[in-house]
């Protein structure tokens, strides 16, 4: 099982990635206050980190938690933030790797990524309803 290297928190701090990192269950996690997703993406790109994924999780207040995941030298860094009125700025213009991830997240969780030139459907087709994973018709 993947484990955390020693002194990596110090490395993260010295690289300008902030304080408050915690290693938990396979990833480094941070939940910055009022996270600027575009500034974070720009910093990760400057560090030659690799964009991995956006993971959306539904919250009770109807906003969507978004975990932005980047690989930096084999370590997985997860920046946790949330939408405001189901909206968040795009990072696809900064890193094209995020283009499909944003389109998919829109279809699954109805998140609007602001600032995109277009949001063509990825898994669904034009006119299909969005928010597939928010549907409640299935009984848990």
């Amino acid at each position, binding site marked *: 099982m993947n484990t955390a290297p020693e002194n990596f928190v110090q490395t993260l701090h010295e690289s300008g990635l902030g304080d408050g990192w915690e290693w938990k269950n*396979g990833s480094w996690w941070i939940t910055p206050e009022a996270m600027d997703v575009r500034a974070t993406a720009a910093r990760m790109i400057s560090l030659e980190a690799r964009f991995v994924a956006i993971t*959306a999780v539904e919250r009770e207040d109807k906003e969507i938690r978004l975990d932005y*995941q980047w690989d930096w030298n084999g370590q997985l860094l997860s920046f946790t933030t949330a939408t405001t009125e189901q909206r968040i700025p795009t990072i696809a213009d900064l890193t094209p790797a995020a283009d499909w991830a944003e389109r998919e997240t829109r279809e699954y969780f109805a998140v609007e990524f602001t600032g995109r030139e277009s949001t063509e459907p*990825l898994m669904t087709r034009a006119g299909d309803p969005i928010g597939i994973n928010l549907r409640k018709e299935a009984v848990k």
Partner: protein
Amino acid sequence: MSFRIPIGPYHPALEEPYKLELLCDGETVRDAVMNIGFNFRGIEYLAERRNYLQGITLVERVCGICSNVHSLSYCQAVEQLTGAEPPERALYIRVILAELERLHSHFLWSGVAAKLIGFKTIFMTCFTLRERVMDALSTISGNRVNYGMNCIGGVNRDIADPQAVLNILDELEREIGHTILPIFLHDRSVEARCKGVGILTTEQARAMGAVGPLARASGIGQDMRKAAPYCAYDRIEFSVPVETTCDVRARLVVHALEMVESCHILRQALRALPAGPICAKTSSAGRFKVPAGTAISRAEAPRGEVLYQITSDGTDIPSRVRVRTPTFMNMATVRHAVIGQELADSPLIQASCDPCYSCTDR
């Protein structure tokens, strides 16, 4: 004269269902637009409505080629949440399954590539050898496609006769050395067909987040087995082949050399297979509790990094299951690889990215 050529989603030039619109000036591709989602099954949605044990069976069906790596990644994430630690023997068996899966996937890819290059004899050889790997997988698991080997805390079946797999390995290594390597690494016709074709530069690969053999053929040397070791990979010696010419030939070389490395890994794992149990003990009722929390597991699938993120709310059904597959990152690179290329080369270029749309669409 400009042409707009729609190919797919079901077309003889494609190995998988997706749609590619090529914008061409004469025979030269100027741009490409890709449409996916034709295999979309809503697996993440379904996994959030099934319990953890049902989830293993479900995610194994994300892909018909790399089915094992999905159940492995899923189980690894749940093991982090539950604290279940697989015994050593289970970790080695997981490595053996993962490398056999990589071998049969790479043989399949090599056969498809050989066919598109125009080398149908090698296509037949690759698929014959792939059958031998399937025989080994069938011997171990009883199945040819969905092996049902992984469980939370270990594996479901032991490898009773490692020597039987070693015997198949002898045959595979001999054929790879005599046939695959000379053709893919040194044959002049193959080189002439593939050299300089479908270039994906290191910068493009990095910007697009490419992973696996595709990224390693573009000079990015990351492999999860080395970068973030799991199972027993940190106890096994192997190399990660990297090429820097960034073309279809580089992808051929990387795949061929990775097959050799997989054989090395298999030989070590089969010989070092430790004695002991194959699954961690659960409570007396055979049940386990999954505490609330989030866990992430990454593994190196045949096509590159797979990521599973599982969030538990403390019930027996995960509240979130996120599956990020390698082709989801790799396939968008096709646009860069085909621009400026001959239209007739586009099927080979697409296939060289090793697309899997069952994985991508989920």
